[in-house]
């Protein structure tokens, strides 16, 4: 296996764009990325599309060549990857393997989701398709309710509080307010975050990520050739994907995500670093409790300490371990299939010192954690500037 670098990034803003369809979003992200990585479409060897539910949201299947040809990429393998909210993280993982193995020299990965074309109850139903439809979903579960049950158990076992959850939302909104591409650029107070409209007890509106349209793209190449295409290459130092049960009721302990632990252990080992070395991270805060548990599963804090770690300010932009400086899924937005690649884009911006008002001072070693469903897929990526 040979070293791989991210040589280009491109993103659309995230939001509710009534006049944009899935393909136009994906093309905008892809074109920006190709320009950023100084590539013509004809130089791309393979195309991967991360997308969760285009067929359900937009009635369109066969999405990878549908997007790649619109980008002017013809003839090469074009493959869609679906892994719920980890769709584009997984697409990125497979693209990485293609370059690392020497099969491809230049791979474009686009993540995209167009969600706001459906009313919220239908969006909730489509998202529920990432759960066990014959069991938990049939019983009336929504994704918010699955994470609510996780939160309830975490509170019971570790004493995690509503205040801890709210601290995640307040912090991520404070970051997103500084991100020009974020969907909800709004600072919120603890009081607001504690008292939002109930969604699934103990989670309220401010604990939930947004329903979003958007796309994000990255271009991968062998590290030895990266300087031809960018002045600021970022290396993929470690990456792993892991899997677990889809149904929450099959997991022995719902207060931890074994797939996150497995993927991060492998990624740390591959990169030759540990949790203490990571300088900033983009974590999958689909719900506030998910960020708290990720902090624990990645080893940034001990089990049960994710809430207090957050409330103490360690994960703020000015803290020792800035998390979700982009605003996270909570404030930046969560176009499901775009999220994994968007996390990589946001870290690369920080690592290139191009993050503007939200720039953090230490940015040479970063981690992205992309979670699918209630933990059945996880992709962890460690990036470094060399």
């Amino acid at each position: 296996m040979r070293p791989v670098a991210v040589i280009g990034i491109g993103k659309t803003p995230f939001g509710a764009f009534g006049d944009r369809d899935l393909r136009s979003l994906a093309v905008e992200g892809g074109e920006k990325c190709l320009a950023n990585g100084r590539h013509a479409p004809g130089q791309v060897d393979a195309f991967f599309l991360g997308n969760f539910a285009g067929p359900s949201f937009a009635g369109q299947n066969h999405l990878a060549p549908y997007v790649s040809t619109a980008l002017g990429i013809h003839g090469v393998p074009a493959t869609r990857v679906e892994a719920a909210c980890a769709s584009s993280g997984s697409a990125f993982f497979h693209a990485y393997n293609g370059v690392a193995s020497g099969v491809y020299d230049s791979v474009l990965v686009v993540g995209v989701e167009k969600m706001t074309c459906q009313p919220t109850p239908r969006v909730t139903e489509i998202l529920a398709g990432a759960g066990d439809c014959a069991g938990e979903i049939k019983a009336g579960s929504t994704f918010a309710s699955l994470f609510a049950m996780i939160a309830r158990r975490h509170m019971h076992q570790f004493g995690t509080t509503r205040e801890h959850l709210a601290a995640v939302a307040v912090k991520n909104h404070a970051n997103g307010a500084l991100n020009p591409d974020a969907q909800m650029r709004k600072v919120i107070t603890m009081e607001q975050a504690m008292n939002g409209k109930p969604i699934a007890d103990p989670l309220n509106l401010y604990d939930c990520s947004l329903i979003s349209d958007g796309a994000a793209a990255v271009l991968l190449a062998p590290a030895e050739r990266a300087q031809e295409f960018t002045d600021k290459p970022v290396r993929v130092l470690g990456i792993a994907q892991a899997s677990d049960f889809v149904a929450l009721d099959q997991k022995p302990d719902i207060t931890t995500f074994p797939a996150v632990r497995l993927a991060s252990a492998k990624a740390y080992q591959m990169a030759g670093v540990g949790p203490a070395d990571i300088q900033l991270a983009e974590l999958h805060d689909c719900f506030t409790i998910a960020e708290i548990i990720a902090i624990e599963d990645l080893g940034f804090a001990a089990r049960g300490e994710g809430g207090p770690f957050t409330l103490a300010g360690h994960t703020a932009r000015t803290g020792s371990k800035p998390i979700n400086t982009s605003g996270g899924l909570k404030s930046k937005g969560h176009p499901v299939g775009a999220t994994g690649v968007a996390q990589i884009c946001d870290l690369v911006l920080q690592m290139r010192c191009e993050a503007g008002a939200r720039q953090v001072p230490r940015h040479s070693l970063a981690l992205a954690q992309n979670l699918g469903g209630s933990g059945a897929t996880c992709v962890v990526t460690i990036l470094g500037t060399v």
Partner: protein
Amino acid sequence: MSDRTGTIYTETVIYSSTEAFAADVPYQTAIVALDSGGRVTGRIISDHGERVRIDDRVSRVEVRDGVPFFRKIP
């Protein structure tokens, strides 16, 4: 050991649902650790405003379309 009785492992009350369950909102779901072993996700019957919490004992009173409905054991 009975597969009709068990203990609440975790629970939630849902206020925002898919269209199929909109008429039931708010309703409670729970993961029940069955006395016979294993866990199952089911609905909690709350026709008298009952609400279950973690470690409460419940019994299954019916199965509708494959979904178990539990009631709190007083």
